[in-house]
């Protein structure tokens, strides 16, 4: 039976993973323990054929249960399925070194996310210089990508949050729907982090999500 990967944790946390969590296809979530790195997995009938909202929500809920148990967790991207446990172990061993390094470096951290709609002042207030002349749909698309990139690179909450966060990554939701600030935060600093975000006038309408598994920080900085 195929093995589905939800996330990766350091092996010294493996015995703290809750035993009663159900994942995709209602399969019980379990841990494949390795020397340094362990995989949070479940057994599925088959690899998910396509992404659905239910599957995506279940994937995230499994990771949430692990994070709620106080474990620093690197989220696996959706839909990684292996022939069996041995195949999954092989892949974890092969790629595990870089992930183990990240988890060791970020031990005790969670990911927090600040969501701003495109109409919120901070997200909307960034002026982006436009290209001089657009001559076709190809250039228009490239210009759109460039403008998005330019907006993102102008945005940062890190100066305001200071040492409350370890790192920040900024991205945009599709179709310019909003801006996402992903922050790496020590668990014991989460209450202060929330207060800082909620107390900032420009972030009055921001939505704060977390604590989450490390999604944006699961891989080393590109």
């Amino acid at each position, binding site marked *: 039976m195929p093995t589905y*990967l939800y*996330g*990766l944790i350091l092996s010294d946390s493996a015995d703290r993973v809750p035993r009663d969590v159900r994942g995709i296809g209602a399969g019980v979530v379990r841990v494949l323990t390795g020397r340094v790195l362990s995989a949070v997995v479940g057994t599925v009938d088959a690899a998910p054929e*396509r*992404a*659905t*909202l239910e599957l*995506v*929500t279940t*994937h*995230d809920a499994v990771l949430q249960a692990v994070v709620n148990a106080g474990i620093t967790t*690197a*989220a*696996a*991207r*959706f*839909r*990684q*399925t*292996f022939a069996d446990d041995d195949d999954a172990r092989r*892949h*974890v061993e*092969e*790629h*595990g070194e870089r*992930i183990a390094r990240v988890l060791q470096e970020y031990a005790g951290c969670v990911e927090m*996310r600040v*969501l701003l*709609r495109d*109409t919120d002042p901070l997200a909307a207030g960034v002026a982006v210089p436009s290209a001089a002349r657009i001559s076709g749909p190809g250039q228009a698309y490239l210009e759109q990508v460039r403008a998005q990139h330019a907006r993102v690179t102008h945005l940062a909450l890190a100066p305001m949050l200071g040492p409350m966060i370890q790192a920040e990554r900024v991205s945009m*939701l*599709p*179709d*310019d*729907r*909003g801006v*996402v600030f992903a922050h790496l935060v020590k668990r014991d600093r989460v209450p202060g982090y929330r207060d800082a975000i909620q107390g900032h006038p420009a972030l009055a309408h921001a*939505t704060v*999500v977390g604590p989450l*598994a490390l*999604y*944006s920080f*699961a*891989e080393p900085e590109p």
Partner: protein
Amino acid sequence: MSRDPLLDDDAYEPEQLVLSDLVNRVLDKGVVISSQITISIADVDLIHLDLRVLISAVASLERRAAANAPRADVPVRADSQR
């Protein structure tokens, strides 16, 4: 790309923003250790279709609930719950 009119108004509420972020982070972020992982554009389109259907359904339910809610100016008898 044009924006979806269902989501393209001031009613793009925090819950919808949270769902949209959830879908995007699970599909687009996180560790990749399998070379066979592929999320096609069709997948992303389909899941956004799911999202639109869900949001639309929630909006309909809320409208229905509001329409069926007892009016404050109509007295409700204590035995009317049976």
